[in-house]
């Protein structure tokens, strides 16, 4: 397992580099996670919510907008963490030659790539925190249980960021990245219990949904926002951590293999 032992605290300056860049452009980085959930809340919460006023979930009924809001937090974490590692890393790797430059310092490729995953996770946490603030302002998040959304966002951020790096590693051209968006992100967006409870779907589709990484984050954010934490959430956390670790390992291995022949 030299791959793991080659990751060190030296990944911190890689993370800092990306943070410095995003602080220069912080306004454009804050606006999407701030405004996206508002669009969804207005369109689906108030638009669709006018027809579907109440929705039953785990034996209780909720206003549609209240049901949907915690799903928005999870979706935001997924989008921001995945896209940062997918496009951001691809651009730094391929066009800016950032990794080639850093490789001529005491850092190893494993440090650089682990730093990139950690940075994508940070973007996920950041998006999760902002969207949580928005739904809190609408009175759609119960406290203190909703605070659990923050560590969940970071942990799931690592997982989605690792998926992003994995896609970047296997895509020859930047245009190829449309494919994982279509095949992976969009299905999760639709079938992870974000907009409707999974109970109404056919059994096979429920089984598929249970395997989707986003489903487990939605389960956590919804339970936290509803103030209904249950021991079963530990399984969701374990799933997210395990998939995150596996995909991170594979992504670093593939990307290193691509860059160092």
């Amino acid at each position, binding site marked *: 397992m030299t791959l793991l032992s080659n990751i060190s605290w030296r990944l911190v300056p890689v993370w800092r*580099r990306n943070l*410095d860049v995003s602080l220069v452009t912080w306004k454009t980085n804050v606006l999407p996670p701030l405004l996206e959930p508002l669009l969804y809340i207005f369109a689906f919460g108030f638009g669709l919510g006018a027809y579907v006023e109440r929705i039953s979930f785990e034996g209780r009924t909720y206003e549609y907008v209240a049901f949907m809001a915690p799903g928005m937090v999870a979706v935001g974490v997924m989008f921001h963490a995945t896209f940062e590692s997918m496009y951001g890393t691809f651009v730094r790797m391929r066009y800016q*030659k*950032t990794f*080639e*430059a850093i490789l*001529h310092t005491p850092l190893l490729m494993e440090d650089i790539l682990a730093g990139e995953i950690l940075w994508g996770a940070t973007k996920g946490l950041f998006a999760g925190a902002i969207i949580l603030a928005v739904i809190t302002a609408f009175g759609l998040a119960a406290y203190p249980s909703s605070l659990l959304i923050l560590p969940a966002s970071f942990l799931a951020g690592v997982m989605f960021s690792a998926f992003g790096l994995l896609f970047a590693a296997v895509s020859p051209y930047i245009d190829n990245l449309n494919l994982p968006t279509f095949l992976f992100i969009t299905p999760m967006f639709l079938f992870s219990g974000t907009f409707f409870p999974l109970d109404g779907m056919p059994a096979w589709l429920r089984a598929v949904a249970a395997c989707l990484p986003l489903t487990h984050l939605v389960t956590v954010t919804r339970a936290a926002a509803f103030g209904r934490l249950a021991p079963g959430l530990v399984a969701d956390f374990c799933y997210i951590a395990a998939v995150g670790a596996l995909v991170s390992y594979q992504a670093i291995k593939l990307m290193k293999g691509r860059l160092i022949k």
Partner: protein
Amino acid sequence: MAEHGRVVEASGVVKRYGAFEAVRGVDFHIEAGECFGLLGPNGAGKTTTVKLLCCVLPLTAGEIRVFGMSAAEHPRRVKARIGVCPQEFNLDPDFGVRQNLMVFSRYFDIPKAEAARRADALIARFRLEDKAGACVDDLSGGLKRRLMVARTLINDPDLIVLDEPTAGLDPQSKHQIWDEVRALKASGKTVVLTTHNMEEAELLCDRLVIVDLGRIIESGTPAAIVGRHAPADGGGTLEGVFLKLTGRQLRE
């Protein structure tokens, strides 16, 4: 810290990319405080050799020791003491000139105050004062190259590797880089230089090797190499010897 003895020892170095053998068993050493030249046609294996020496590519076979340490076993420790200026520009386009030096210093774990001191000194030394805040993308080729060389020195390296540092530069910038190489040597640093410019090699290199098709085909001081191969009536040049040894046909 001035070095003594051999800074680099390479023995039986082989690098294969799949079936293609880019470096086919080379042996060389580099003495402390000298300027060592790597010459060869395009595709001869110079840049690959440099990358192996700088611990950014794994060896297929053989061994490279830098500062007495195995490059394969201690890449972090070796890289901490090397400064590398690659052929291709890879400055960070997301930052300005001074910020490029500051961000790069963090990878070497240089404390911020010390990094700021070094960055300002390098900016002055490479005449980048007017451009300190400028965006890297707005710099001319010559300024970019100067910043690349300045960045190479941010960790105060004992071994400096310059891969075609004067390619595409105007005479003024070229002479400035040459002066820098002389200054580095004067301060006791060891320099590795790859170049296509024979005048540059004759002026700066204490010893050099000519590489072709992944092998070293000649080595020694520039004068000794010319002496061995030049016509008996004298008047030989390194360029003439280079063409005689590596042939006149295009390589790529």
